[in-house]
């Protein structure tokens, strides 16, 4: 997963729900130095009884915000969604020669 262009990640999930798996795996995909390099990561753990769906909010460097409902998604689909915009940004960066 391309995480270079993420500036802000907010995850909310109930660990005791089966649908929390992609949310937790997404967190484990973030590289160890991400926080030092300025990515903001907020995780909110819901209580066990809550039925709220797991959500993932991502902000990119160009200001685009992405809200994903993780209820029906697999981790590969989440990665695809996030990478789609990241690749656009990577391409732009390459073209401007930075």
């Amino acid at each position: 997963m391309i995480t270079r262009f993420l500036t802000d990640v907010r995850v909310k999930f109930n660990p005791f729900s089966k649908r929390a798996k992609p949310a937790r795996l997404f967190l484990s995909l973030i590289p160890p130095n991400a926080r030092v390099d300025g990515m903001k990561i907020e995780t909110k753990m819901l209580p066990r009884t809550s039925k709220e769906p797991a959500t993932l909010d991502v902000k990119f460097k160009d200001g685009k915000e992405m809200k994903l409902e993780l209820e029906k998604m697999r981790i590969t689909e989440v990665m695809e969604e996030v990478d789609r915009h990241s690749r656009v940004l990577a391409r732009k960066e390459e073209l401007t020669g930075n």
Partner: protein
Amino acid sequence: MPPRIRLQPRVLRLRTAHTSNIPLGATYASLATATTPAPSVDQIRAVPPVLRYPPTQPPSHKPPEVRKTQLHRTYQSVLKSSPLILLFQHNNVKAVEWMSLRRELATALQKVDAERAKNGQSGLIADQIKFQVITTSIFASALRVVEFFKPEGSAVDHAQEATDPRTPTSAQTSNEVEDEVFQHGLSRRAWEVASNKKLKSELEPLFAGPLALVTFPAVSPQHLKTVLSILAPVKGRFDAPKRRTTPSYYEPEVQLGLQKLMLLGARVEGKVFDTEGTHWVGGIEGGIDGLRAQLVHMLQGVSGSLTGALEGASRSLYFTVEGRRMDMEEKEKGDAPAE
């Protein structure tokens, strides 16, 4: 040419028990033909059962020399020996960060133990509280074995030495993995029970992604509170140590590591708690003694109110009867002058 002596190693073999049975005449080496003595009565008896494995290593379903199998066995023993387990998710925590986190945890727990020792309390378990990374899927499988495989009936008594000739022939031994007498956690039977998909354990949804465990050898809320205040501090309830008292806690390695740890839940004596429940367990004042004191207090309150209630009924009856008597007396007084 000297006469060739035919030596038969079978005849020359040292036989301590049967030397008396063999007639002396038969010992002439030159005459010794193939006269094997008939087996005596105590030789004919049935062969005692022989175990083909060491008593401490009964046959396992999966190949026992593989790391996975040994991890499975280790996790089973961890689950059986620790009544209190905290589950954390760790997201790419570096080795340096692990090291500093463990160091902070150990020093904080040592302080708790020192305090307990000073107060004369028992239960100094600081050295045995371990913070370890686990292989999630193997741990999940081990948990299923521990939760669902409850062997009953007689197992193989490994204490009896099967190679000892005194062992009765009727002794129950087996060398086959398929046999149901094996009831250890790695047996075929355990595997069959644990692979039943219909049985669901409560912790199952937690087993995804990278996990780490904090295992306690006893349920001690005081130690739990310390662990929570170090690894998952909450303002107000489980305060992180002050910068003045423990500056090492505020080193960047520790803080970075902490940001990547998430407390998911706990398993307390077989029951599953979420974060809130874990905080509740950690918040029990004074541990088990504190709980006992609370219970005694509550029971005293109950008995007090019970006597009150019982007294109350009789008292109110008394008041009613008394009131009625006064009433009637007054009536009588009222009636008397009219006559």
